[in-house]
């Protein structure tokens, strides 16, 4: 377990096999994975914090269970990384913000608890855009993440670090969060699998709130099987999140093995008009591949797609302006002094937040301010109903929907940093999934001429992650990945 090629290519099943064959112990694997991740990290800046003590303690528990002949868990010994917007008890959680630079949470997120109960070994916390606001990971207070596939390019965002560690091989799987595309877009840019489950499928308890009606926790992995395994562990009702769903969690790995013959797949024309030819060609080739397996592919319409960006930036910023009000210099570590209480608040927030976070707080405050509520917020909520209705109608005709994830592959660092609207437009194909609350994912489907990964996006009905995984798994297998 010393060769770097081995640790960087591990999958969950390879870890399971290695442990049961005694090729390595969980403790040996944790030590190797940690030292490999620490050595490789300077190239990408994907990890903000390593957690060797926690990792070795978790690994020791797995080894102990194995020694006693007990079942060590679905993720026994698997080195995982957690986006730094998901709280970890006793382990610094920064949201990539100066305002939380020294915050040590007093509790664990439910998703983290569930991972560790199944034997996962958390080796560190990953970099991201500040408070998950961004599409390139350039909004981190701790510096940008570089795309492991092309170091002069962004890994996507906001979960750039969580995508990068899986692509780089410095974690086997990771957790990210998605509010407008923050899992699928970096997964597509880095060439890994990224899943945004149905809204409420995974408890948000312990996910630092950005936009509560849009926030999701979901997994990154190197293949569809691993992503399905991680989702099954973290999914399900949680009393600590009243919006978490009661719907039973399916055995995704069993159900996704069914052939896709006769499945009806929809191609929304709005997602293919004006799509760059290179991304379009790669996505179309993937669709052909699914047709050859007997899927029936038909064009559908999601007519309100063009309003998604406007709808999203009103709702998400309105919710963010309220959620981020708590960072006031009182409870969460950072404070800039001021003569009055109000001065202290203003100075703390003025110094602590980065430009993009301030921009969104301002926009959200503006759209909620007296006289504008109906024109902006209420209007956007009505448009959200129309967007969700587009999906319900489409799913009366098809079992799943296929689309590109992003209009273009990973762009260069700095390329869009001065143009917020251009940056927002890179999320144009992912926002609708969050607005409608449907499960969606990115699965690698090829490369651009420059060798940059491109992802295929798959949407399914509410709580029908099984069909989404089934399409992804059958595609992945036929593509020989």
């Amino acid at each position: 377990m010393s060769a770097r090629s081995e640790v960087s290519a591990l999958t969950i099943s390879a870890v399971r096999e290695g442990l049961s064959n005694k090729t390595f112990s969980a403790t040996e694997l944790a030590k190797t994975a940690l030292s490999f991740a620490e050595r490789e990290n300077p190239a990408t800046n994907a990890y903000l914090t390593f957690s060797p003590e926690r990792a070795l303690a978790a690994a020791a528990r797995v080894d102990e269970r194995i020694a006693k002949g007990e079942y060590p868990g679905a993720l026994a010994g698997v080195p995982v990384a957690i986006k730094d917007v998901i709280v970890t008890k006793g382990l610094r959680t920064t949201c990539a913000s100066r305002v939380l630079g020294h915050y040590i949470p007093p509790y664990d997120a439910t998703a983290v608890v569930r991972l560790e109960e199944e034997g996962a070994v958390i080796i560190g916390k990953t970099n991201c855009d500040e408070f998950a606001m961004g599409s390139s990971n350039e909004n981190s207070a701790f510096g940008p993440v570089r795309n492991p596939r092309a170091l002069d390019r962004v890994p996507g965002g906001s979960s750039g670090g969580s995508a990068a560690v899986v692509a780089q091989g410095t974690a086997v799987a990771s957790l990210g969060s998605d509010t407008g595309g923050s899992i699928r877009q970096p997964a597509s840019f880095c060439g890994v699998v990224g899943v945004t489950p149905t809204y409420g499928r995974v408890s948000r308890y312990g996910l630092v709130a950005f936009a509560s009606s849009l926030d999701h926790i979901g997994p990154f992995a190197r293949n569809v099987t691993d992503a399905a395994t991680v989702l099954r562990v973290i999914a399900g009702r949680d009393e600590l999140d009243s919006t978490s769903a009661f719907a039973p969690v399916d055995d995704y790995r069993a159900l996704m093995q069914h052939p896709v013959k006769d499945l009806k797949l929809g191609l929304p024309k709005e997602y293919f008009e004006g799509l760059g030819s290179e991304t379009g060609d790669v996505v179309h080739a993937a669709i052909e591949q699914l047709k050859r397996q007997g899927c029936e592919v038909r064009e559908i319409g999601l007519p309100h797609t063009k309003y998604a960006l406007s709808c999203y930036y009103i709702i998400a910023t309105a919710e963010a302006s309220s959620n981020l009000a708590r960072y006031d210099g009182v409870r969460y570590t950072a404070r800039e002094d001021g003569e009055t209480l109000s001065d202290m608040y203003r100075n703390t927030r003025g110094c602590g937040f980065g430009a993009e976070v301030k921009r969104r707080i301002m926009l959200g405050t503006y759209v909620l301010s007296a006289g504008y509520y109906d024109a902006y917020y209420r209007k956007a909520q009505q448009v959200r109903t129309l967007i969700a209705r587009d999906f319900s109608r489409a799913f009366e005709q098809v079992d799943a929907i296929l689309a590109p994830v992003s209009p273009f592959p990973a762009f260069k660092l700095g390329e869009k940093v001065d143009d917020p609207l251009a940056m927002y437009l890179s999320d144009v194909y992912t926002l609708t999934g969050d607005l409608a609350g449907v499960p969606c994912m990115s699965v690698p489907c090829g490369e651009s001429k420059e060798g940059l990964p491109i992802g295929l996006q798959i949407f399914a009905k509410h709580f029908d992650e099984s069909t989404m995984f089934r399409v992804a798994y059958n595609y992945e297998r036929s593509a020989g990945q």
Partner: protein
Amino acid sequence: MRLTDEEVRYVADLANLRLNDEEVARMSHDLGQILTHVEQLRELDTTEIEPMAQVLYDADETATLREDIPHTPLRNQEALANAALSGAGYFKVPKVIERS
């Protein structure tokens, strides 16, 4: 559409954000650009459309109610552990009430 500097400062006040002059100028441009883009929503007639106040909910209205069983809350020390400034078991802030 462009927000005036006064409008930007007013919103910054509501949001409890200290912005310097450069940030105010930048913000009036950026917010103006985004607000211009979102004006497209006016094209849509939404008079009969219910606003989406809840994403989806898959159980009875009372399903999230539980027995009211007391449990141990966060201890005072833990709650204060991340405070910028604390003392005597409380969060400390600049003086709010003036003594006469």
